[in-house]
């Protein structure tokens, strides 16, 4: 058992190694995660330290003491950027787990039970899908207190619709397969069938989807922070952009206060998207090149053997 599981993993990593999209995405994400985890050791200044600043320290251009310059309060942009990675990633991961959990459950239940249950759940999903996310998120965050936890919850409970539809469609195709009938003939309960036969076949798609949802969640968090709806004591990338934007960073010509967090967001979102699409290619057999794909390399005849 372990042997085959190991060989499965090996083939998975083998595929991963050949998929440059997944590989590049994974690398980008790993770098971001390492930066976030080791922030206190990497960052040259502590973000919470009390500063004694003079007028020259406000929006100071990049120099040897502050590689990325300073912001409106004279804080080091590089340190803020490094610590900001933590907030963005935490929100991204936890919010997407909530999303995928909700979406996965709704998708599997709707797909498996069908009929009225499915109709009810999927129409609810449709309603959630057509409501514009951002205004609703703004309202919800404004109504609750703008804290890290609230932002995670709001993003989490608004972002599950795509997952629900994807998982439902996969469940629909899996449940019609014969081994589900066989499991019923054995006398298994619905719960057992879902756990043993449906879930493992839906899981790969859910994993690939999770990574994509993470990027959406990070983007959403940055948007909310940029709009000034985040907890001001936890500086995230979106909030750095917000501060630079609203506190005269542009008119001061302090591009360094905007570029660093902006690139950070792009870096992580791009990493997630690349990894997500790469994983989808590896895990979703429908997107895979299969044995019937047409190509030049199918004919491997030595040139000397060509018929005249």
């Amino acid at each position, binding site marked *: 058992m372990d042997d085959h599981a190991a060989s499965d993993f090996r083939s998975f990593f083998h595929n991963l190694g050949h998929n440059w999209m997944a590989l590049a995405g994974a690398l980008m994400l790993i770098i971001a995660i390492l930066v976030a985890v080791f922030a206190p050791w990497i960052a040259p200044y502590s973000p919470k330290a009390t500063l004694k600043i003079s007028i020259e320290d406000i929006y100071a251009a990049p120099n040897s003491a502050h590689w990325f310059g300073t912001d409106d309060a004279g804080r080091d942009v590089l340190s803020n950027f490094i610590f900001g990675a933590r907030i963005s990633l935490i929100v991204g991961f936890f919010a997407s787990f909530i999303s995928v959990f909700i979406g996965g459950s709704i998708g599997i239940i709707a797909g498996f039970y069908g009929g009225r249950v499915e109709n009810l759940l999927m129409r609810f999903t449709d309603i959630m899908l057509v409501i514009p996310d951002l205004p609703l998120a703004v309202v919800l965050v404004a109504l609750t207190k703008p804290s890290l936890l609230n932002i995670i919850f709001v993003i989490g409970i608004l972002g599950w619709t795509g997952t629900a539809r994807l998982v439902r469609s996969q469940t629909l195709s899996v449940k019609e397969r014969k081994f589900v*009938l*066989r499991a019923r*003939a*054995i*006398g*298994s309960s619905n719960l057992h069938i879902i756990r*043993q036969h449906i879930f493992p076949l839906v899981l790969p798609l859910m994993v690939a989807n999770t990574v994509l949802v993470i990027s959406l969640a990070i983007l959403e968090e940055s948007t909310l922070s940029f709009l000034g709806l985040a907890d001001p004591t936890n500086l995230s990338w979106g909030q750095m952009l917000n501060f630079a934007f609203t506190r005269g960073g542009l008119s001061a010509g302090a591009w360094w206060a905007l570029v660093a967090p902006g690139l950070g967001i792009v870096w992580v979102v791009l990493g997630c998207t690349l990894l997500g699409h790469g994983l989808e290619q590896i895990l979703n057999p429908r997107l895979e090149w299969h044995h019937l794909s047409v190509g030049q390399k199918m004919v491997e005849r030595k040139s000397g053997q060509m018929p005249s």
Partner: protein
Amino acid sequence: MSTRVSPLLEVCNISIDYIGPNNTCLKAVEDISFTLNEGEMMGLVGESGCGKTTLMLSLLRLLPVAGRIVSGQINFRDHDLLNLNEHEMNQVRWRDIAMIFQGAMNALNPVVSIGDQIAEAIQCHTPINDRGRRHAAVDELLELVGISGERAEQYPFQFSGGMRQRAMIAMALACHPHVLIADEPTTALDVMIQAQILELLDSLRRKLGQAIILVTHDLGVIAEVCDRVLVMYGGVMAEYASVDTIYNNPAHPYTQDLIKAFPDLSNPGDKLASIPGYPPRLDQLPPGCRFAPRCRHAFQRCHQEQPRLYLLEKNHQASCFLVENERIFGNSNGKLPDLGV
């Protein structure tokens, strides 16, 4: 012939409808009765779409959502399976009646190892909590069908078609069922594997004493291993008799044609007979005998009236007006005997 023992499974006048769109009813199976004794092997033949699989699935109460068992009884050891609730039915499934599904390739979950899938059946009914003993039980089942126990850890894609079929049989035997339904167990396999599988089924029956219902298109297979044969046509019984009677003295024209359509090895030069036409569509059933449009002997009455099932001799029933005068007392489907001839 089968030894005379008490019937294990008794199916009485079962009818199954499929509910179509707009509540239309399609009569997929109508008024079928048969009995299965312990240790008996019964063959079920008929063209594609004549209701064989529907009938078999109804024994486990596993019809597709549109299927409805509208009348009849399925008596298994003196209680009617149609009266059980879903929980009690789950107990009967696999422990009393197990099924080898058509096309084993699809009946196995590709991401669960063969051993775990067999263990799943065991765990459902007689849970073995000890890991070692469970593995031993699975190994034993696999050895029984000629697969070495080491391969229990492998996944379905690592098995060949024939091995998957045998693994499916091992799975069907996991709970020592009294009745084994083999729904075209050899479809899509070559004749060598087919012979192996049938030999296996036959030897298992002798060893373990199960009753087996063998669903197949292959009359040669039936002749070799079965005791009794039920011939279905368009959802109804055409003929039900011992295998000798079916081959040597078939009463129903459909059975006769079916046997003629099978190549005769002693006369290899013979032209193979075929039955012209197509089996009836369920939404356009003929008003009379369902076989009448294709029957060589059909006369006026066949097109107007459905023949009953006539008891010709002990263990031989056929539904055809041609044999109406040969029947011995009454008819066998439980209705009042018709004496007005």
